[in-house]
């Protein structure tokens, strides 16, 4: 079916929201008004009591293909994303081999095009993500790559990072940094602090992250190239980026749901499900990150969706790989973080419009292959829409995940708000919270 009438929802625009109907036809929003009569042959979707906004955009999804298909594939990741309300995902380049050349980027784009979602690619900054020499960013940019990162690890060498920024600037692309100084992080497996000291686990200090944020802010000041800070996890990091922003520097940042919902005490049971880089921080930092989300001090919430095969999460804590699933519960966890009187405009700013702007997936950006995302819900826009029910109450369950992997730390957690419907590239992908 290619025509839908979304009826009676709160339509959330970029600055305000109002109750009304949205008519979609042939992949495009054709009418938005207070009341639209149902055309013949058109499916009606009841959105009363729900928020209707632009489809969510994830800046940070590890889709594991190629190389670790036992954990996730582009197809399974897209299904998990659709359930989570996403219409566009940015696939991270730390695959095996890394997405550091046009052949591999093309492969992922082609695989992504077979899924119901838009799958964009973040290319590697350095060859093999080894932090030694620049990857062919201009060639990848010509394929439409707009973000580059070595995520999983930051570019450690300041000279190389400076060169990468200088090289990237005229390409009109944005670099994104995983900020952790690995020498200071010392191979640690959780946040350094009271808990790590007692558990006898080597800690990754907050300073390992903050030092690289400081360094890179100064490199942005020097080069003028835009930089996106991935998954910031400390109060100081967010303060630093906002201070740089006030200085007029072209910096943006994201935070991940686990950093505003779980603190370091979660590691007390030595369960590798709670191991992630940057690590789950102190309660003070967790509260600060949630407050930053609520006050709109971050540009995006991004999942850092990191599937791992179950046998790898059965290793001892210090040997297990870092990372946890994120796509399916991100919208609900973000909604909950917004407090008792959640602002729908902020919700869609964090989960759709902000990330779409950073990934250059909006209408005003020069698009290559991709639909427009993070739009204003106006006639003429591509139909990438999500219907979110703020009144829903449900429970996370690792038995019901759509990812191939099951390494979610939220099993059994009560959730507020739920994605009811996802319309991606004009097609109904999720309805009544199940895949169509």
């Amino acid at each position, binding site marked *: 079916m290619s025509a839908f009438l979304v009826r009676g929802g709160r339509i959330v625009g970029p600055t305000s929201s109002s109750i009304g109907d949205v008519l979609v036809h042939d992949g495009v929003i054709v009418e938005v008004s207070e009341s639209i009569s149902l055309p013949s042959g058109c499916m009606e979707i009841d959105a009363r009591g729900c928020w209707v906004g632009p489809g969510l955009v994830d800046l940070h999804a590890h889709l594991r293909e190629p190389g670790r298909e036992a954990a996730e594939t582009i197809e399974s990741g897209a299904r998990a994303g659709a359930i989570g309300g996403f219409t566009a995902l940015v696939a991270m380049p730390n695959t095996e081999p890394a997405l550091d050349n046009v052949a591999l980027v093309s492969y992922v784009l082609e695989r992504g095009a077979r899924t119901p979602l838009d799958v964009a690619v973040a290319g590697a900054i350095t060859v093999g993500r080894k932090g030694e020499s620049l990857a062919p960013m201009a060639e990848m940019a010509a394929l439409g790559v707009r973000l580059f990162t070595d995520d999983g690890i930051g570019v450690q060498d300041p000279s190389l990072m400076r060169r990468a920024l200088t090289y990237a600037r005229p390409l009109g692309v944005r670099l994104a940094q995983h900020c952790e100084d690995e020498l200071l992080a010392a191979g640690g497996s959780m946040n350094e*602090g009271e808990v790590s000291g007692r558990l006898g686990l080597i800690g990754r200090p907050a300073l390992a992250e903050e030092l690289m944020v400081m360094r890179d802010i100064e490199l942005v000041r020097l080069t003028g190239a835009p930089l996106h800070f991935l998954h910031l996890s400390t109060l100081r990091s967010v303060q630093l980026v906002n201070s740089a922003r006030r200085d007029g520097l072209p910096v943006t940042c994201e935070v991940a749901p686990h950093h505003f919902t779980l603190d370091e005490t979660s590691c007390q049971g030595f369960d590798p499900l709670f191991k992630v880089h940057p690590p789950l921080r102190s309660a003070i930092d967790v509260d600060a990150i949630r407050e930053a989300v609520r006050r709109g001090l971050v540009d995006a919430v991004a999942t850092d969706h990191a599937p791992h095969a179950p046998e790898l999460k059965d290793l001892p804590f210090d040997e297990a790989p870092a990372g946890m699933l994120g796509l399916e519960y991100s919208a609900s966890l973000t909604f909950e973080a917004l407090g008792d009187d959640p602002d729908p405009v902020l919700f869609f700013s964090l989960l759709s419009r902000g990330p779409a702007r950073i990934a250059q997936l909006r209408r005003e950006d020069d698009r290559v292959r991709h639909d427009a995302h993070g739009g204003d819900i106006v006639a003429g826009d591509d139909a990438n829409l999500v219907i979110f029910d703020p009144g829903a109450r449900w429970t996370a369950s690792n038995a019901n995940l759509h990812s191939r992997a099951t390494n979610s730390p939220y099993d059994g957690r009560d959730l507020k708000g739920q994605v009811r419907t996802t319309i991606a590239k004009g097609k109904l992908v999720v309805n009544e919270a199940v895949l169509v």
Partner: protein
Amino acid sequence: MITSIRGQNLLTLEGMSEGALLEVLDTAESFVEVNRRTIKKVPALKGRVVASIFFEESTRTRLSFETAAKRLSADVLSLAVASSSVKKGESLRDTTATIDALGIDAVVMRHQSSGAALQVSRYVPHVRVINAGDGLHQHPTQGLLDAFTIRQVLSERKGSSGVESGLEMFKGLRVLIVGDIRHSRVARSDIWAYATLGCDVRVAAPGTLLPANIETWPVTVVSNFDEALEWADVVGLLRLQRERGSGSFVPSLEEFTQTFGLTLARAKRLGPSTIIMHPGPMNRGVEIDSKVADQVNAVITRQVANGVPVRMAVLYLALAGVREGGAS
């Protein structure tokens, strides 16, 4: 709060109640006598199977546990998983399942990763897990035998038995722990046991060998090591964990010895009755002078000897009240 290890796992001494500690000490006391008999065996765990799995090399702890199990008449399955033969990356769950399939009641395990014993206890809830040392985290039976040894020595001086003495001697007892606290699972067990028993616990170490946020621990960090030696009733030395990379946390072993080693000169500051302890194996000449290690007040070999009755007590209590066939 763990109020008794009866029928329970022994994974950590953090959060173990005074009563639970007393129960182990008193039970161990009753096994001391067994070890003095000509026939050193009681039938307490006859028919029970105790597996001993050491993922990390150890001689004394393994021998001590296996001796303890055999003196209780348990069958011992000793699995040779020397770290060299265990492929790094093998799932802990798979290894555990293999061992469990042999039919065991308890597993004594040592692993180089902190938390490994707790993880294993989740995979085999029907098997009692005794932590014989996990990474930098805990070495609970060492903490128990250290407390047992202190009680034994102080009771003997009073001419009474440990059981009669109860826990009174621990109240306000001045214990100084010296050395590589950061990388020591022994320190993490000793400190919690001593603090729970009411000791005044202080630690002395180079700043780099203190764990993160030690100010939240029930200890005082001393600023003057020499004065602290004069203050102490008990001095517990720790091995400098060179194999865990702690060598790079101090400029040199010589400098460590100069500043925090119990040298002959420094040992003169100790009171005449101060007890000197070391969990072994010692780096003679590094954290402790060879002559000091052999002084009368050094109870290092007594610690080793007490390992057997204390581990007998732990195995006995952990398996007590567990029905034939396994599940409690």
